[in-house]
């Protein structure tokens, strides 16, 4: 995790405000950031809140989980269940999307999100969002 002097740490919320094994949405200026807490491994992750697939502000409300033997932490968008790695931001559902991932630190019960995205993730403007048929939403 990046933690050099040039990183500015934004105070997001209290650790107690974040549910176990799920996410909340943090407002940082005009930006929306999804913040996740994994209780089993006591790990924190932050990503952009926008799901690049259908451009919905939704990732913070997604279900978290892990993928594979390496137990890669991931989140599934609540809209069409596209999943993204919380380490790299890569889409794990076989598409070319990528989301920004930010460093997180916790001090004295306060959660801070780093200003610079973790290397390897691309900015929000450049994701490809081809017209994917997606799944039909369940309704009533």
């Amino acid at each position, binding site marked *: 995790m990046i933690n050099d002097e040039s990183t500015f740490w934004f105070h*997001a*919320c209290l650790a107690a*405000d*974040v*549910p*176990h*094994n*799920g*996410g*909340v*949405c*943090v*407002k940082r200026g005009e930006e*929306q950031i999804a*913040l996740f807490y*994994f*209780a*089993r*491994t006591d790990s924190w992750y932050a990503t952009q809140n926008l799901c690049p697939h259908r*451009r*919905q*502000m*939704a990732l913070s*409300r*997604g*279900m*978290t*989980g*892990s*993928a*594979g033997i390496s*137990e890669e*932490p*991931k989140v*599934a968008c*609540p*809209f069409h*269940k596209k*999943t993204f790695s919380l380490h790299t931001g890569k889409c794990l559902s076989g598409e070319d999307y990528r989301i920004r991932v930010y460093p997180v630190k916790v001090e004295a019960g306060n959660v801070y999100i780093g200003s610079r995205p973790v290397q390897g993730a691309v900015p929000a403007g450049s994701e490809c969002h081809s017209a994917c048929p997606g799944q039909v*939403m*369940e*309704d*009533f």
Partner: protein
Amino acid sequence: MVGYKFCEKMVAKAPKGSCHITVLAEERRPAYDRVHLTSYINGISAEALTMAPISWYESQNIDLHLGDAAVNIDRQAKTIRTESGAQWSYDILVMATGSAAMVPPIHGVEKKGVFVYRTIDDLDKIIDYASGVKKVAVLGGGLLGLEAAKAMVDIGIEKTYVIEFAPKLMPRQLDDTGGAVLRSKLTALGLKVHTRKHTYQVLGEEKVTGIQFVDESELSVEMLVISTGINARDELASAAGLTTGPRGGIVVNDSMVTADSSIYAIGECAVHEGIVYGLVAPGYDMAEVATTHIIANYLDGERKQRSFTGFDMSTKLKLIGVDVASFGDPFLTADKAQHLIYEDKVHGIYKRLNISLDGKYLLGGVMVGEASKYNNLLQYYKNNMLLPEALDTLVFPEQSSDKQPAGAGLDALPDGALICSCEGVTKRDICQAVNQGYETADAVKKCTKAGTGCGGCMPIVKDLVTMTLKNNGKEVRSEICEHFPYSRQQLYDLIKLERLSSFEQVLKTHGSGDGCEVCKPVISSLVASILNEMILSKNKDTAQDSNDRFLANIQKGGSYSVVPRIPGGEITPDKLLVIATVAKKYNLYTKITGGQRIDMFGAHLSELPLIWKELIDAGFESGHAYGKSLRTVKSCVGSTWCRFGLHDSVSFAIRIENRYKGLRTPHKIKSAVSGCIRECAEAQSKDFGIIATEKGWNLYVCGNGGSKPQHALLLAQDLDSDTCIRYIDRFLMYYIKTADPLTRTATWLNKLEGGIDYLRKVVVEDSLGKAAEWEAEMQAVLDQYACEWKVAVEDPAIRKRFAHFVNAPEQNDPTIAFVPLREQKRVAEW
């Protein structure tokens, strides 16, 4: 269809860039599925019938010219001229001009109201003309004629007459008895059948008013549809000097080459060894042969040998609800074959198998009224397989009680056995695909194309996949995901036995990793089904499915919708006013749902507790529109108002909805109660539905197939209200305990060995001896019911979670935007 299939095969098999394809078509539409033309009437759009969209041709670099018929071929110059005057040159020309409806020489066929039945345009014209028409005659009692008659029934014509020249229906496929059985079945279904009728002329001044037969009898009808057969479209070929057959058709050799070595003919326009094939499977085979020949001889591609050697004309079809099948030679007389005949006049079933004189091989046969063994029999016939000792197994449908395991008998099939005749896929192809890792029927379908034509072979394909997996020692996978090596049913038992009460506990004791979006909702749902505790209690909320987590349905843009429960669809004016007031106050879009309630859209996350507080104060409860749980119990108005109603369907619907509200199930479930046989509540399209009878209630189950609709089946008859509810208890418990994740009731029943008969034994006859236990379990779960929204709005800790920003709870998501629509609003598109 055959022309399209040729393109598809060329694109797939020709060396890249070795050829360029131009398609010239007379019709305005790209190739479409004529086999399923009648489904067009039942609302399947022309687009859905299209073999491939125009964009497919573009993506394959094929030039497609629609609505411009070719009118001339210059074989010396190798050019083609079209109606519009355009000229095209070719190296190789493939004619797939198909056929036209054959119109017999009858006086007056030019009159208004006389139609042929062949294309979507024909159908459009028929549908246009048919409004107000009550009596229609269909000329032709063969395969095509009966298809057309079915179309007339589907359009809603009151009286449809089928006129056949021969002494029986389907004279080419059925023997005399078979024809007679089919006739009596169709008559019972409301069709009027006249055989041995030679039509002489169409009556009427300008429009059809009737038809007259050679025997001078008359029949008054307002419309006449001619469907007596096909004529190969060979006029273009014969004008160009190509050889055609004495009864039409472009003469081709075994490689589909015509008299001109640069010109091929495939499909219904071709005549091979004197036969014009009017079915799609031989047409596809011809496309394959032509492709192989062109690639080998002109394109420096793979040098494969493939020739057309005639084709088996076996068919199985469902005509207006009656199964009819014919294969091999159905007419063999007693000197050439022994006959195995089964006739059941009670149910209208007739079967005849022609067996070789030594009793060893199957040579052909006919089946009317029941044809479930067709695929098996066809394999015996086609592969010249030795018949089993007990011949009665060939005739009787499989009994559900002694059903053989999937795949039985398939082992005996030779590897080369053709399974999918539309695409020419053999048993070997399918088994190889499974061995290469395509381990589901769907994957095999994509990989081999088996089942993509008429789809009739899919049951065998599925059985072959299961058999091959078993032979390889592989279990057919049923684990819910990578985190739990258990099926949903096993997890249900574990959770119940070990009294586990949260996803975290189940993960800790039986799973690995952090779980995922598959196992979390499944296990949360199981815990809720068993305990029925508040799903949002601390740290349980994040293991719920996304909609359950916020007790609302997330909609496009990120806003939510609100659906209060309106049991049985009954609501007072005062409560309507409450909904109206709340919707106005929070500026919500309102819509009546299909389940007789009202949906309010466009609420911000933070507004949900406020809205629900007002609704609950006015006496509403959660409608669970967000859950895999009981949604609605729809009702007709019943005997309290309706002059036909037998019982009070509304009161019963309210009782049922209030009983099962909050119950979490493998998939969402819906119900309905109809007060009489007119079925205004559409109970037969629900997971469980109830219809009043003179003596009580009929209970129907498993009528929800989701994307594949399926009618509910009768489980029990003439029940009193309490017994009906006990049966529903048992049915739902059995479903909850045994269904796979996200399996609807219809799919669950389809997978249940023994089907509805077995289900009836379990539920009605209590064959498992579990009824009392299940009823007690159900009662215990239902006793735990509390309105989730009431608990949520009264608990400050839960209420706090309904904020978009954790660090700015007073602000809504600024990216949610609405635009006006018909005096309301809708989500703005991004």
